């Protein structure tokens, strides 16, 4: 995983452990829980976009599949939260395979539109399957989840629960990219033709990463459901898919830490933009545009560039 990553991970862990003890405001704690949930999806999407070079504008759908599987199975059919959790992961992987096999043959714009279309269809289905999902108003009364006999029922407990998941997923992903497979992924990003001429099975690898990113999103969905204990389709709309892409892009597509920073910024920022009410969308659009044009490598890339120039 490399010394640099281990060190950053250590600092992050220390901060995470101290944080709940120094902050008395439960509101900050709950924001951090959402940062963790969004971060898990962003890490997966970063593997797909920044490393494998494939775009998805439909990842809210996998988040939604995880969330609704957990919600529906536990509250309507009395499933144990953990079995629902794993069934959600299973369902998301199967759907990701079914969508990924034909989609990943497509390139660039076509792939973006295919995933966008898939996301919209899933959103419509969440709205229309009223018997199961409760339709547009959503569904509540979702039980909390427990861990080896202990209910994860306070914000502090849930905070540690979510961030433990995130750290695990981050370590897994860092290991993945610093390996033979990670090299192959980056090669696809740079030149798919050269990668396959060097023996990389590009279509298989792209599909695997697509499924992995869908699984991460599904895990985040289940975690979301058992924290909020209420789900409605509007949380899984196109704008959330775009928000996820923004998280990955703003931090820096080619860096997992960038995705995490992006998730943090875009989860915390709305709290500061609250005064703007609905018009925060304008700020989002402007930030995204400026970053893409002037800092195509994201905040991490941009700051790194400035840092290097400063050193010289």
């Amino acid at each position, binding site marked *: 995983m490399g010394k640099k990553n281990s060190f950053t991970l250590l600092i992050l862990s220390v901060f995470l452990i101290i944080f709940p003890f120094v902050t008395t405001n439960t509101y900050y704690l709950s924001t951090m829980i959402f940062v963790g949930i969004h971060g898990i999806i962003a890490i997966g999407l970063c593997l797909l976009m920044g490393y494998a070079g494939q775009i998805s504008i439909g990842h809210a759908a996998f988040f939604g599949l995880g969330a609704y599987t957990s919600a529906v199975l536990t509250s309507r059919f009395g499933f144990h939260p953990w079995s629902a959790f794993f069934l959600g992961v299973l369902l998301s992987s199967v759907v990701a395979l079914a969508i990924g096999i034909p989609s990943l043959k497509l390139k660039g714009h076509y792939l973006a539109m295919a995933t966008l279309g898939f996301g919209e269809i899933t959103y419509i289905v969440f709205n229309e399957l009223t018997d199961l999902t409760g339709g547009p108003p959503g569904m509540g009364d979702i039980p909390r989840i427990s861990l080896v006999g202990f209910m994860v029922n306070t914000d502090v407990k849930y905070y540690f629960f979510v961030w433990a998941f995130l750290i695990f997923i981050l370590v*897994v992903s860092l*290991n993945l990219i610093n390996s*033979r*497979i*990670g090299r*192959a992924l980056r090669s696809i990003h*740079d030149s798919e*033709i*050269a990668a396959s001429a*060097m023996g990389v099975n590009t279509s298989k690898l792209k599909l695997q990463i697509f499924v992995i990113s869908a699984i991460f999103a599904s895990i985040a969905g289940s975690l979301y459901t058992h924290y909020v204990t209420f789900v409605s389709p509007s949380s899984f709309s196109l704008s959330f898919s775009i928000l996820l892409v923004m998280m990955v892009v703003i931090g820096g597509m080619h860096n997992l830490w960038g995705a995490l920073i992006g998730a943090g910024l875009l989860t915390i920022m709305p709290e500061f933009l609250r005064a703007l009410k609905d018009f925060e969308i304008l700020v989002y659009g402007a930030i995204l545009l400026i970053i893409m044009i002037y800092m195509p490598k994201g905040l991490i890339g941009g700051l790194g560039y400035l840092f290097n120039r400063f050193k010289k």
Partner: protein
Amino acid sequence: MNNTILHASNIQKSFGGLVAISNLSFAVHETKIKAIIGPNGAGKTTIFNLITGIFPPNGGAFEFMGTRITNLKSHIISAMGVSRTFQNVQLFSNMSVLENVMLGRHTRTSCGIMSSIVSMSKKKREERETRERATYYLEIVDLCDRMNEYPENLPFGKQRLLEIARAIATEPKLLLLDEPASGLNTRETQNLGRLITEIRDMDITILLVEHDMELVMDISDEIIVLNSGRKIAEGLPGDIQENDEVIKAYLGED
């Protein structure tokens, strides 16, 4: 004659009505250097793309070491022992020089997603071996001192060499070089010629597309001449130089 390593029979390829390759047959013999020459647009690069499975031919077949490879996927053909470079150098720009060559070891290593994630001793050992092998190939092209740089920071001639190092890192039986001398100066071209024969002496057969006639005549064992997708001559370098049809094609007479 040696054994045939690659056999092309009656290859046809057209792009939307435009015929690129027409009824082409040839054989490449083991541990020889064979050159394909011809004017621009003769279909030379198309042949490489067909052999390496980037697109399939409309008719005909390729046989590599006795196995039919037509319609196989690129990565499978590569794993069987066919490697290549590209006319417009295609290096991985977000990877260091060393990592580019390490990627060449992809099919000679085996760590999958699971062992990559849990980071076991197998992964560590394999990564160390990959690094050592990659360094060995960088030594061959004399790029060891720049292995931590990024390809875009290398001069163009070195980028060509890096691409060759990456290609031979796959331990190919057959190496396809697509205009390796284009963009090189005279001295670099001479070194390249020496390098290519060195690679041949590593028991790697070479199929070469090249415009630099001096280089071609100097190192090739056999030459095929293409014009507008058709083979107009094939033979030893000396014979080709005196072939009337070849001279006609090159002087631009119809």
